[in-house]
């Protein structure tokens, strides 16, 4: 269980405060809602949602409705990064019960096509 510290500034700061995934007991409804919300997020140039593309690496939800999303992006140091981060933030915050969200963008491990869902691979012909 964790709370957003009152002295937190910026977007990534409270990821340090997260408990480990096994201790999380986030409401299944919120978890389902967050996943569905993430499936509405797209890279501006790829007509497939970021969940099935395999861009979401980790998703943690606390009892209190705080969400931590660890993800990668299609292009490093490109405006697509902020674009996707803003989309994810907005989508997750729209889920009832979510109080706040932290989005962390990483490149480790690097994205590979095997992270895509079966359906996405089939649709994209990969």
């Amino acid at each position, binding site marked *: 269980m964790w709370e957003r510290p009152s002295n937190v500034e910026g977007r990534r700061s409270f990821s340090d405060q997260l408990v480990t995934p096994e201790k999380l007991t986030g409401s299944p409804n919120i978890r389902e809602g967050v996943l569905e919300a993430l499936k509405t997020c797209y890279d501006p140039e790829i007509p497939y949602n970021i969940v099935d593309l395999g861009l979401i690496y980790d998703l943690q939800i606390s009892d209190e409705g705080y969400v931590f999303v660890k993800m990668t992006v299609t292009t490093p140091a490109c405006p697509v990064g*902020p674009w996707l981060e803003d989309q994810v933030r907005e989508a997750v915050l729209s889920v009832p019960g979510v109080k706040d969200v932290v989005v962390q963008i990483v490149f480790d491990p690097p994205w590979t096509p095997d992270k895509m869902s079966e359906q996405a691979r089939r649709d*994209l012909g*990969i």
Partner: protein
Amino acid sequence: MALGVFALMLGLFAGIFRLMADNGVPDALLSQLYDSHSILMVYGFIATLIMTERVAGLRVLEVSGPLTLTSTIMAPLTWLGAMVYTLGEVWGIKPIMPLGVGLMIFGASAFVASLYMLAQLSHMEIPFLYMVLSVFSLMVGALELGFAQPEHDMGMIMLFLGFPIIFILGERVELMGFLTAVSYKKRFIYSAYALTVAVILFSVSSTITILGGVDYVTRALSLFGLLPVAAIMVSYYTIERETFRKLSTAAQPIQRYVVAHTRTAYMWGVVGPLLMGLYLLGAPIGGLYDASIHSFAIGFVGTMFLAHGPVIFPAVTGRRLNPILLNKTPLALLTLSTILRVFGDLASGATHSVVATTAVWISGWIILIVVLLFLATLVRATGTRAQVGKPR
């Protein structure tokens, strides 16, 4: 970004008013400014904007101190270099021109360092290989600028154009990795090697021109350099067309907007090398050189900027975009402008007719309208600030 737009407007006015001068309104100062048109457009605007968009992208990453430093100084230095060079050219202050060249090279070097560190951070070596190559093209172009003017130096012009073209192709490689099978990545590596050869050929061609070498040698070198550019344009067009054919029903408004632009850009990316190839082969058609340059610069690079502006602008300004408010009027106008320009260039080569000159002149004014219209559209479509936290 504001600095880049300033350079763009200066470059555009230089180009447009020079056209007016051609129509009987002579002005020595504008003529001098026009001589720096390519430097203003490439170093002052395109390079500054591309560097700025990378900096905007960094805001979501944890970056090291050295990367913060190099990425902070690269755009201002390059822009300042272009301005100092232009100032020296326009007001005849020749001693400051090498300073401008030095600043542009320094800015480009900082960009190379930033790209290297980003490649290390992201494990995406192939796109950064393209990007570093493109900046190498920019650096060599600036270096040769220290010895000669770009006018009539095919190699130098191709180096200038090589920067945005290869950089944009590198950005597309990032995307292609998601759209194609792993085996395709080999193709991208071979393409990068081919483009490296192209940049070397353009560099050698420009050096030979500066040294007063043989014309047909520089033509042959440039011709071989153009082949991979044309091949890659066709390849990318095909991949994007196939992807969107498969997933057209799932495409979002922003994706439909972007792909309409990128596919138009690729078409100009094929027209450019074709026209330049005809010129280099000595085809008896006047104006091929100018028509080719404008196919690349307005058709390909300009359209790519329209494609990515709606992604770049919100990232730079911190505002949220509503894609529904975007429209394709700027694309239609820019395409019309490029067609008019290419037609005008080709026709004026054959005869200095009023029709040809007017077509070129109208094309220039349309570009100015496109820029203003596009900026207005972006401002309208990004009316609200991006949400950074949930209201309590």
